[in-house]
Structures are given as structure tokens and as C-alpha cells.
């Protein structure tokens, strides 16, 4: 018997897979980016199904609100290729497809090798357990992940500075 969460999962998984295929196959890059949005939205739903509410929302904020928009911007800023309706895959695409297939098969093989533990079901959330404050504590407490968190923020800062520097139009100088 299939229950509501499974329905939602299957729907979103379908959305994800279809959208992802569209991402890598459509010619119009803007469409590809919009399909990516769709994929990411599906992933957000999957997070919601997994009861990771913060991640679900953050997924929307970060991926759709920022990353996807940036992609669209970038696509529009490089208009010459946007207009070309030529083939969007390179000469090696068959090789790529093959490798991707091998990877999928290998992964599936490995996953299936784990047997019974694969059928593990999620435990019920304990009463009064707030994953968000647990997450918050884990992120900033020294016993948790304060250091990786800080490193990530430094990484972001570096990326910020770096991308501004790289994208700066030096021709004007």
C-alpha cells in the first residue's frame, strides 16, 4: 500500500529526473536553467519529505533565489551562444553518455549490495525535538561544526572577492 508521503516522493522524484534530463538536453540555455529551477524545487520537496525543513527552505532561497538567477544572468550576458541554435553537445557526448551510464550502474550495484539496511525506514521525530535549534547549535558550538562553518564562510568571502575581481571589466583600465 502506498501512502501519501510516498506519493509525494514519487511525484517529486519524477519531476527531478525529468527536469534533470531536460537540463542536460535542451538547446535553449535559458530553458535549461529554468528546468534546473524545477529540478531544484523538486529536491526541496524531497527535503521537506525528509522533514529537513530548514534545508528545504534554504534550498529554495539559495538555489532558486540566487544560483539559478545567476545562471540566467550569465546566460543572458553571453548572448552570442544563446542565439546559436546549433548542437549543444560536444563530439565526445557518446563517451560521456557511456561513462554516465557506467557510473549509474556502478552506483546502483553498490547500493543494492547493501541489502536489508536499504529498507530502513525513518524513525519518528521524538516529541519536542527541534531539528532547527539542534542544527543551529551544531553549526556554532565548538564541539560541533564551528570550524567547518567558519571555513565555509571564509570560502564564501573568498569566492565573493574572487568573482568580483575576475568579472571586473579590465578593459576599462
Amino acid at each position: 500500500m502506498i501512502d501519501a508521503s510516498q506519493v509525494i516522493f514519487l511525484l517529486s522524484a519524477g519531476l527531478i529526473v525529468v527536469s534533470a534530463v531536460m537540463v542536460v538536453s535542451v538547446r535553449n540555455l535559458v530553458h535549461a536553467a529554468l528546468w534546473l529551477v524545477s529540478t531544484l524545487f523538486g529536491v526541496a520537496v524531497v527535503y521537506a519529505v525528509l522533514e529537513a525543513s530548514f534545508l528545504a527552505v534554504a534550498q529554495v532561497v539559495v538555489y532558486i533565489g540566487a544560483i539559478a538567477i545567476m545562471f540566467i544572468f550569465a546566460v543572458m550576458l553571453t548572448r552570442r551562444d544563446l542565439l546559436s541554435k546549433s548542437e549543444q553537445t560536444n563530439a565526445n557526448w557518446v563517451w560521456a553518455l557511456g561513462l554516465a551510464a557506467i557510473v549509474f550502474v556502478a552506483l546502483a550495484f553498490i547500493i543494492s549490495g547493501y541489502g536489508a539496511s536499504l529498507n530502513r525506514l525513518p524513525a519518528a521525530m521524538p516529541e519536542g525535538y527541534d531539528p532547527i535549534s539542534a542544527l543551529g547549535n551544531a553549526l556554532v558550538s565548538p564541539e560541533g561544526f564551528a570550524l567547518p562553518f567558519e571555513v565555509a564562510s571564509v570560502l564564501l568571502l573568498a569566492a565573493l572577492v574572487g568573482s568580483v575581481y575576475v568579472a571586473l571589466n579590465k578593459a576599462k583600465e
Partner: protein
Amino acid sequence: MNFWTDPIKVLYDWLMSLFGGWGMAEPLANTLVTLLGIVVLITIALVLDIFLVWIERKVVARFQGRLGPNRVGPFGIFQPFPDIIKLVIKEDITPDGADKVVFNIAPVLSAGSVIILWAVLPIASRIYGVDLNVAALYIIAAGALGTLSVIMAGWSSNNKYALLGAFRQVAAMISFEIPMVAMLLVPTILVGSMSLNAITQAQVDGVWFFWLSPLGSLIFAISAIAELGRSPFDLNEGESEIVSGYHIEYSGMKFGWFYAGELLHAFTFGGFMAIFFFGGWHGPWAEEYPLLGAFYFVLKALFGYWVIMWVKYTVPRIRIDHMLAFNWKFLTPLSFALLIVTATVHVLMRDAAFWLYVAAMFTSNLLLGWLTVEILRSYTREKREAVPSAAHH
């Protein structure tokens, strides 16, 4: 428990028993009632939206020394209905070069991104859609969808003005999202939760957060206006430059959705301002009688909406680079500084007497504001003094 103390629960129980009486299975009935609730909420929002059109037109007229709609109904209150009829029966044009699918999705997404905000609004003490524990972030996420709709509209129109408008809007939204998130964190820090209900409750039990973070509410208001794309930050429309921005190619009800979305968005942000800094539905007897609370809430939201309008019709539009510079060089650093100050004072003082805590918060805000003004003043003085000397040489 009666209708006046908990209307939603009463209605829910009544509907459940009604459906149960029809022989419906309980899960199904539950789903049905929930769907019904969603529909009712959306309907209320949209009906409110209709009247917002009237309010907007009335208020702008007053600002401009006119009367505004005054023919249809008392005070022209039924004016929106002819408007809607006009929009609906207008010709629906889709340009040739447009990307049709995207072009059609955009207005829906735009209005949808606003309506989903209503899911988390605590309208009164026991009246709310869902008590999401990441609601504050959810607002931003919904905003992200709005951004997406704008860029979709702009791009799919295949019109350079539309695209330019979309670019501007997106740049503004992404930029001003940062101080806004930072200011959403202020109540979050004070309460220790992102749930809007918890935030409201904390203000009911304590003081309105305006008193703890006056500067925060100001920054929030400014970034909200920018987020809404209203004057003085309405660069996305910029009639004199890019004609009408991203919805230039839209007509009829598709345009109507953008328009409705914008008005409702502004009203909703008035509501958020009320929730985050002015106690939400808090008022005399609001806790006991939720409908009274809802009344207060709408009043406060309308006040916020009025402030947004007030600014819109008073302040002229500014240049895009000024706007971005204003955000990145001023508002963002300030909001981060405020966030740090708030967090520090909060941690240091939370065990002290309550009045002391409030006083410390309030004064630290004022102090930071004063410091900022001083720095700005000396900065502008330098700029000012630099000019004549440069002219000299």
C-alpha cells in the same frame, strides 16, 4: 470554547462532523477541510486585494490633492470591480518572439509567490495557515520565487525594455534581500525561533520589538520597499526610461495578476512589519478574542501599507547605481553591525532586569544610529570639501 474564542477550531470541528455525517473517511475529510481552508484563505486574500486597489487609488489621490474614485458606490468603493471587468475583457496579447510557455507562467508565479506568503501569516492568536518553524526564511524563499517570475517575464517577453526592467528588479531584489535577512534575524535572535507565531507571542509577553530594535525596523522597512520595487526604488518600472519594465508586453488579466500581486505584496509586507516589530495581532483583549486580533492585525498591516504608499508618493525615484551603492555600502554594513550589536547586547543583558535589558537594547540601537549618522556626516563633509578644492585646480 466557542466561536469567539477559537473560530477556526469551531469551524473545523463543525465541518469534520458534517463530512463525517456524509459517511466520508476521516483522512479524506481532513484533506478536504484543509483544502477548503486554503481556498478560503486565498479567497480572502484576493478579495482584500480588490479593495486594496481602491485604497491605493484613494490614498494616492489624496496625496496628489485629488478625490480619487468616487462614482461607483459610496466613496467609489466598488470602483475595483469595473476595473477587473475591464482587465478580463481586454485583448490578451502574446508577442510573436515571446517564449510562450515561460511568458504565461510568469504572471501566475508572480501572484502565487505572494499568495503563498499568506500560508504563514499569523492573522490572530489562533488563526493562521501553518506554524512553520522556518517561517522567517520561508518569506525570503517566497521572495525568491517572485524574483524568478520577474526574470521569466522579462526574458520571455523578448523585449529589451522588459529585460532591462527585469535585470534591474532582480539586482535590487537580490541586493536588498541581504539587509532584509539580517533584519529578520534580529527578531529571530531575540526570540530564539523563526516561527512567526513564536515571534508574535514573544512580543505579546514582552514588548514590541520596535522598542528593542528601532533601527532594525527602519532598515527592514527600507529593504522591504526595495524588495517590493516601489518608489523610490521602482527602477524596474521606470516609466520614463524603460516604459514599464518587465511587464511591458503583458496586457489584460495577465497584467492584472502582476498588478494584484504587487498590491497584495505591499500589504503583506505591511503585515510582516507588524509581526516582526509591532506585535503582530497584539492589542487589548486580542488574545481572548481572535477576531479582534485579526482586526488589529489588518489595521497594523494597513498602517504599514500606508507608510509604504506614503514613501512611494512622496520620494522621487533614484538612480540604479545609487540604489545599489546605498545597499552595499551603507545598508548592508549597517545591518550587519546592528545584528552584531543586537546579538552582543542580547547575550550580555538578557539575565539583567527586564527594563534594563530594554533600555540597553534601545540605547545601543540609538547609539549605533547616531554613530552611523556621524560617520556619514563626516564622509559627506569630506566629499563636499573635496569638490571646491578640485574645482580650484
